[in-house]
């Protein structure tokens, strides 16, 4: 008999379907359930560990970002052959609106990177050049393409353009793969229990009974929809936290994971004082409430859409909101796996990901909803410091000029030059100067100002096609920023 005998893995230790082992070895083994959003899995260090409860806060009143996360979470489980349970009012609507697999996904679209179609088109052009692509400095030549997101993951990508077929839902409901727990108030409210806790204890009893018969070789994904809203009987903060604590102890060490989605008002502040019980809750503030929620679960993220503030979308274009990580899963680990493995968080101290942060501070994160997918990306200001479009000269105030109104005396030097119509144009051979006489009479010929000379665009309102050929390119002179080279 040889000295070394390979130990065969018992079939009972095989990972449940649709899960992956944790990225760092763990004894006892730890398995991760993907959330359905690859970029969110990256933030959680590979996925949500089984036995964990995670929470999504969506404080934006005008949008409902938690619903799309719920659908991704549910759809991923159904695609992977796992069991699903939706707790909440109209849970069927969540499942019916789930996205589904994009079976016709082409290989080219499977390439990792940003979702922006414009960016992808540009990159295709560059890669298509092959050997003829322009030479750049050697130290930049092998540099990886700048990305704000991560790849699409190894698993089949869920496509927002696809919806789960009705026949599939019916089949899964019939086989009890997908179940629902509606929020029906019980007929007999025991003792001094309130309506809210009666509903909650009824839900907990049903989950407990389901877990009692649940086989741990298969994963159960539980989605708790809008915990604490009016359909739950408007519970107090203590009841909400007790419900989560109970749920957490039920699924701990089981092959089940729970997503808790909070409604908008409870993602901002605790339940109103009228609903509070006892004087201890009177000191609760919004910040303390969020901390309590984040402590009560294994992982907590906040998706704050820009719906409340219309000035933010243009500033953070193309993002639709900001993502805040309140807490991260640490099950079976001293260091949260996200710190080591997450590219988006940027907290890794390893040299391989030095470009992502190298142990420095945490990246700012945002999310965006594309046509096909929802993704989390790092937030970056544009090259020009957040301006999407660079304006090389101010737009002439045509209304004032045509009306004959004089400009105020206090003007910047740049504006003074423009008012005098002085534009310096430099060419390789000479430095001609074109002078437009100042408008003395107040009847300026705006069409003359708009006149296009050799690719120079004098006005943003100029709608003639721009000639950006080799001769017509404009560069900014670094010694004199208000001069342009052609």
């Amino acid at each position, binding site marked *: 008999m040889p000295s070394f005998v390979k130990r065969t893995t018992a079939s009972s230790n095989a990972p449940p379907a649709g899960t992956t082992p944790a990225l760092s070895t763990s004894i006892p083994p730890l398995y991760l359930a993907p959330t359905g959003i690859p970029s969110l899995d990256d933030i959680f260090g590979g996925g949500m560990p089984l036995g964990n409860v995670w929470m999504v806060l969506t404080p934006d009143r005008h949008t409902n970002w938690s619903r799309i996360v719920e659908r991704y979470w549910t759809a991923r489980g159904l695609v992977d052959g796992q069991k699903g349970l939706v707790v909440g009012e109209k849970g069927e609507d969540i499942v019916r609106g789930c996205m589904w697999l994009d079976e016709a996904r082409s290989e080219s679209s499977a390439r990792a990177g940003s979702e922006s179609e414009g960016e992808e088109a540009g990159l295709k052009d560059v890669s298509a050049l092959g050997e003829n692509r322009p030479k750049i400095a050697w130290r930049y030549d092998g540099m990886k393409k700048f990305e704000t997101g991560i790849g699409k993951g190894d698993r089949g990508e869920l496509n927002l353009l696809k919806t789960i077929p009705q026949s599939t839902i019916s089949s899964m409901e019939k086989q009890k793969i997908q179940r629902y727990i509606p929020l029906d108030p019980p007929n007999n409210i025991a003792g*001094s229990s309130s309506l809210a806790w009666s509903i909650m204890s009824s839900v907990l009893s049903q989950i407990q009974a389901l877990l009692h018969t649940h086989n741990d070789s298969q994963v159960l994904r539980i989605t708790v929809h809008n915990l604490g809203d009016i359909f739950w009987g408007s519970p107090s903060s203590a009841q909400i936290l007790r419900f989560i604590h109970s749920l957490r102890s039920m699924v701990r060490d089981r092959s089940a994971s729970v997503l808790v989605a909070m409604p908008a008002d409870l993602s901002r502040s605790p339940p109103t004082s009228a609903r509070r019980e006892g004087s201890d809750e009177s*000191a609760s503030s919004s910040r303390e409430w969020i*901390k309590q929620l984040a402590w009560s679960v294994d992982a907590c993220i906040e998706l704050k859409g820009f719906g409340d503030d219309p000035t933010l979308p243009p500033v953070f274009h193309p993002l639709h909101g900001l993502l805040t990580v309140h807490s991260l899963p640490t099950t079976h680990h001293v260091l949260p796996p996200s710190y080591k493995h997450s590219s988006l968080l940027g907290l890794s101290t390893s040299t391989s990901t030095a470009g992502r942060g190298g142990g420095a501070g945490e990246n700012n994160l945002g999310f965006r909803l594309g046509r096909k997918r929802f993704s989390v990306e790092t937030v970056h200001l544009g090259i020009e410091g957040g301006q999407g479009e660079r304006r090389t000269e101010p737009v002439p105030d045509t209304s004032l000029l045509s009306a004959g109104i004089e400009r105020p005396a206090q003007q910047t030097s740049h504006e003074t030059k423009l008012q005098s119509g002085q534009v310096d144009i430099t060419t390789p051979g000479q430095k001609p100067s074109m002078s437009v006489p100042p408008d003395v009479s107040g009847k300026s010929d705006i069409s003359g100002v708009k006149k296009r000379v050799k690719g120079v665009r004098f006005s943003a309102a100029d709608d003639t096609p721009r000639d950006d050929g080799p001769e017509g390119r404009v560069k900014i002179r670094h010694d004199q920023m208000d001069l342009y080279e052609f």
Partner: protein
Amino acid sequence: MTYLTEHLTFGPSTSSNENAGALPGPGSHLVISDCLASPATFTLYHLLQAAIGRRLPVIFIDIRGEGKKSLEAVLRRLGTAMPKSSEIFSYISPVSFPSTNVEAPEPCLFDEEGRHDLKPLYARIASRISDQDTLVILHGLSDIMSMGIPTQDVHRFVRAVDAAVRKASCILVTTLHADGLAEGSLTNDQVLLEKLLRSATAWWRVEELQSGRSGDVHGEISSHPLATNGNETSVPKSHPLQYRLEMNTVKVFAKGTGRGYL
């Protein structure tokens, strides 16, 4: 000797047992406060390692519900095997909803009518305290209060456990959250912390960095001896120790020397 032993000691280590100074003395009460971005679980791992290394009995009351398997996995990562015997390592995970598990029922924090009741938990702890030098850890007092149990009742419960621990010359460690401590806001956690500090012998204060999450420094820890005759290491809040969690250990260092240089 674990990662915190040389930085936060409770007396000199003997040549026979290097973990002797890692634990508080018999009859002492160590309070550990932490913040959301910097949980203090790593300090518990240090104390557990020290107790297991000295073959002391441990009673771990996991009110937060982080799980025994997770604790076992973390201790294994740190190079310590969790004792199999429940006589040496007793794990209690109180529940807030009556369990149907009749084989190993855990104490419930609420009775059948929904009223809070900490007596079953106290009875379970008291029944396990037998040997001298048992390490009793109450992990997650804030979680009890967040479920609606008044601060006074939680304080009364801790005082009862403390009395039982002192009577048996054991060691008590309690953890709670103190997120608003730096801001000066008066929350239930702060009220309980103030009450506990009146009877505690030492306080370890774990806080996050003001600058937010960092890959090099995961938080700060200061130590405040509260007993007059205590020989614990004092680490003032103005010059705290900083730490960095790693996959299999924790690096503790003076402020600003995370990578071995200033």
